[in-house]
Structure formats: C-alpha cells, structure tokens
C-alpha cells in the first residue's frame, strides 16, 4: 500500500534520513521504533508532505506521492496524527473534528462524526468545550478522531503515547487495534516499544536515519539486541 524506497531528507546540511526502505501492506499495523533523534518524526513528515524529500521515492497505492502538498496527500487517503497532538486549542471539540473532514464534499460527514463520538465517549461528553481544555489523553483521542474524519485508508500516528498515563496509553492502543480491525491500515511511530510491538504485525527499527533492524513484531520482541536496547533488558 505504502512503498518507500531510498528516502532521504535533510534539514539544510544535516541528513536526518539516509535512505529508508519501508513497506506497509494493506490492512496491516506497522510500527517504526527508534530513540530520540533517530528520524522518526522526520520520516512521518516526509511521507505526509510536510517536508520535501531530498531523494528517493514514496508511492501510495502504486502512485508517486513524494513532492505533493500535504493537502493533496490527505486527499489521497493518508492522514497524520501529528506529534504533540496539534489540537486547534481554541476551537471546540466538535469544530476540531469537523476540520478533519475539511476536504470532504460527500454527505456522510455527519454519520462519520456520530461514529467517532460514539467511539470516543469522552469526546462526546465534552464536544462543546474548547480543545485546549481537554486532558492530554482526551486531546490525543481528539487528534485521532480528527484524522479519522478524513476517512483515511492509511492512518499515521506520531508517538500517540507521548506524555500519557499508562492506562490511557493502553486505551489508545486498544482503539488503534479496533480501527485497524475495521479496515484502516496503520503506521505507527513509537518510543514505547513494548506497546508498539504488541499492537503491530511488522516493525522497523530506525537508528540515526537508517533502518537498523526489521522483522515481524514477534521476532523483534524476542530478539536479544532489541530487548536490550528498547525493551529495558529482561522482561
């Protein structure tokens, strides 16, 4: 579904990504692990068009998308839940969700909105409140809900567990599994390797701009090197 080949992205002279090959199969959950500064967020921003790649190719459903504008990529069916949630803090919860459907002209927006409010009861309860007044977990759910309002085929999440309490994190991963079960493909960037490997089928490990390891998530979970570096040694 998503095919990335030899992708390189630079900030001026600094090469953040040095040739990434990555595939996401339709219907799968793929996760990209890595420490701070490994290039995870840069990768997500490049795929969604927020950054322009220096070289390499990205194609989505067989179509080249590298170099398109973020808005055009959203219309192709890729939605990003940005790092740090990026809530429109002075719009209400409802308005935030509506913004997610900005490019849609079909008549099912209302239906999708009701579906998302049903999936996130916490948001339904606070739909008239400003986004900025929500708790961190609720904001993350709002960001996911907003991304879903675009009806993506591929949902990208950049560190959805960042700064959230453990029980909220497991809630979010449960919701991700549900969304995936309903047919949305998911690509997830995480530092929380344990949760991410549990939720995903295939995983890549990014180290200083290169893919250092890859394999099915269960393989990686049992790989002694990964265990030591990302899972805190003994489990």
């Amino acid at each position, binding site marked *: 579904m998503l095919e990335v080949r030899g992708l390189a992205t630079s900030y001026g002279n600094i090469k953040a990504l040095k040739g990434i090959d990555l595939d996401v199969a339709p219907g799968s959950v793929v996760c990209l692990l890595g420490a701070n500064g490994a290039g995870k967020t840069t990768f997500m921003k490049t795929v969604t068009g927020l950054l322009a790649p220096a070289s390499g190719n990205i194609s989505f459903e067989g179509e080249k998308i590298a170099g398109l504008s973020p808005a055009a990529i*959203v219309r192709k069916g890729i939605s990003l839940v940005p790092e740090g949630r990026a809530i*429109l*803090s002075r*719009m209400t919860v409802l*308005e935030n969700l509506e913004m997610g459907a900005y*490019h849609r002209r079909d008549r099912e927006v209302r239906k999708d909105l009701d579906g998302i409010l049903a999936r996130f009861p916490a948001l339904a309860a606070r739909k008239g409140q*400003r986004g900025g*007044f929500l708790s961190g977990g609720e904001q993350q759910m709002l960001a996911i809900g907003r991304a879903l309002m675009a009806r993506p085929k591929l949902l990208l999440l950049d560190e959805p567990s960042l700064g959230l309490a453990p029980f909220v994190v497991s809630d979010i991963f449960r919701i991700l599994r549900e969304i995936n079960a309903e047919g949305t493909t998911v690509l997830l960037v995480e530092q929380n390797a344990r949760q991410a490997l549990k939720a995903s089928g295939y995983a890549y490990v990014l180290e200083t701009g290169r893919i250092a390891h890859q394999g099915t998530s269960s393989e990686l979970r049992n790989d002694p090197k990964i265990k030591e570096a990302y899972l805190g040694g003994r489990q």
Partner: protein
Amino acid sequence: MSFEWLNPYHLQVGSFILINILLGISIYVTLATGQLSLGNAGFMSIGAYASAILTTQHGFSIPSAIVIGSLLAGVSGILVGIPALRLRGVYLAIATLGFGEVLRVVFINWESLTGGAVGIAAIPQMGREILAAVEAAGFSPEDWGLRNNQFISLSIFLILAAVVVLAILFFLRLLSSRVGRAYTAIRMDETAAETSGIDTTYYKVLAFSQGALLSGLAGALFAHATSYISPADFTYHRAVEILVFAVFGGSEALFGPVFGATLLTLLPELLRAISDYRYIVYGILVVLTMVFRPQGLIDPALVAMLTREKPAGGS
C-alpha cells in the same frame, strides 16, 4: 428643511475614519491566518497612485480607476504573498515593511509618472464630480437645503460609508464560512491545518491578497476623497498606524480593528489642542492596552456577550 448643522469638517473626519476602518479590516484579514503584514501602507499607495494616474493622465472615470487600482494592489499582494510565505512572524513584518518603503522610494524617484516627492494634485474628487453630475442634470444642492461644500463632503462620506458597510458584511460572511475556518485553523496551528487537508499555501496567499486589495481600495478612495496624494501619505508611520488599529482595537474579532480605527482617528481631532503630541497619546494607549488587555479592547468573548450568543468555548 435646513442642514445648517452639517459641518463639512466633521464629515471629513468621518471620511478619514471610514478609510482607516478599511485599512484596519485589511490588516485583520491577513492576521486572520496568523500573518503579520506591515505592507498595507504600500498596497494602499499602489491603489492610490494607480487610480490617481489613471484618472489624471489617461482619462479614466473615477469608478473604473478605483476598481483597477484595487485589483492592481490585490495582484501585487499575490506576487508579494507567495515569497512572503517563507517568512514568519516578525520576519514577515520586517520584509513587508521594507516592501512599502521600497515602493515609496520608487514613487519619489519616478518623477515622470508620479510627480516625485511633490505628489499628484488635482485628482478628480468624488464629491465634486457628483456635484457636477447633479448640476448637469439640472438640480442644485440648494434644492435639498445643502450648501455646495456640505453636499461634496456628505456625498464622499456616504460613498465611503456604503463601501465600509459592504466590506464589513463581506468579511463577516467570509470569516464564518469554510474559508474563515481554514484561516482560523492556520492561525491556531499550521501543522494541524495542513494535516487536516487544508491547502495552507492557497489560503495564506488568498488572505494576503485580500488584505492587499482592501488596502488598495482604501488608497484609491483616499486619493479621490482628498484629491491630492504624495509619498508622504504612505510612510512607515502609516503602516504602524494601521497595525495599532489592530493592536489597540483587538485582532481576534473583525470589530476590533474597526473600533480601533474609529477611536484612534477621532482621538487626535478631539484632542486638537495637543495634536502635536498625538503619538505620545498613541504610545501610552498602546502600552496600556498591552498591559491591561493584551488581546485588544474588543475580543470574541466581548462580541459574543454583546450579541447575546453563547461564547463558542463554553466556560
């Protein structure tokens, strides 16, 4: 019926207020996407000079010259807006301020076209043209109990008032539409707007050129209201004055800069005796606003309260 109380001087102050309201709206529209442009004095000068040159040297009628002048300013807004997208915040403000100053220097030095530092005089004036038309049709302001100078000032005032009302209605409608939502989202968080599928480039350039067009319109109307323009009308003082309308009145609701423009134009006239010190008064007012009401005198919560709607944010 007598209109003896109708004072041309008051009407003229009113006309300047209306022109400044247009300028206040113009900076507000660009600010609605989070772009701080100080180029509106420059765009105003484009509208003013274009309209003045077209009517004095090429025989255009006032309405067509005003339309062309505004459109020219709007197109320059697109041309400046596209490279300006790469700049943010204070850098954009500096670049656009520079743009206005460059234009002013061009107008000073291109003497064959612009009359240089002396400017352009004897620009056809809207009020006098209307008076001439009325007299040509066999009427006289005396028939309605007006002296000629009253009639001239009144007709200018009414034309400007109509333009201002239309501009306010247009932008109120625009800002509560799809486009307005996109502007607000871009202002709040550009990344969030982009990832929601909003074409931020398009909307930022759109807002920028709308502001430029409106400044150009204000400039063209200014030229045909005063019948004299010179580069001194479009210095950085003007740019900062427009900014102060938004800072003082409030930059988060359309009526903020409208109110700011009204009060700050009226104030020096009321304080005629200390008019020389009006920038001191300005300074004090702006500082007081920043300390006690950083969002400006008029903010969305106040508008909501006055219109008796529930504020969008709940608490």
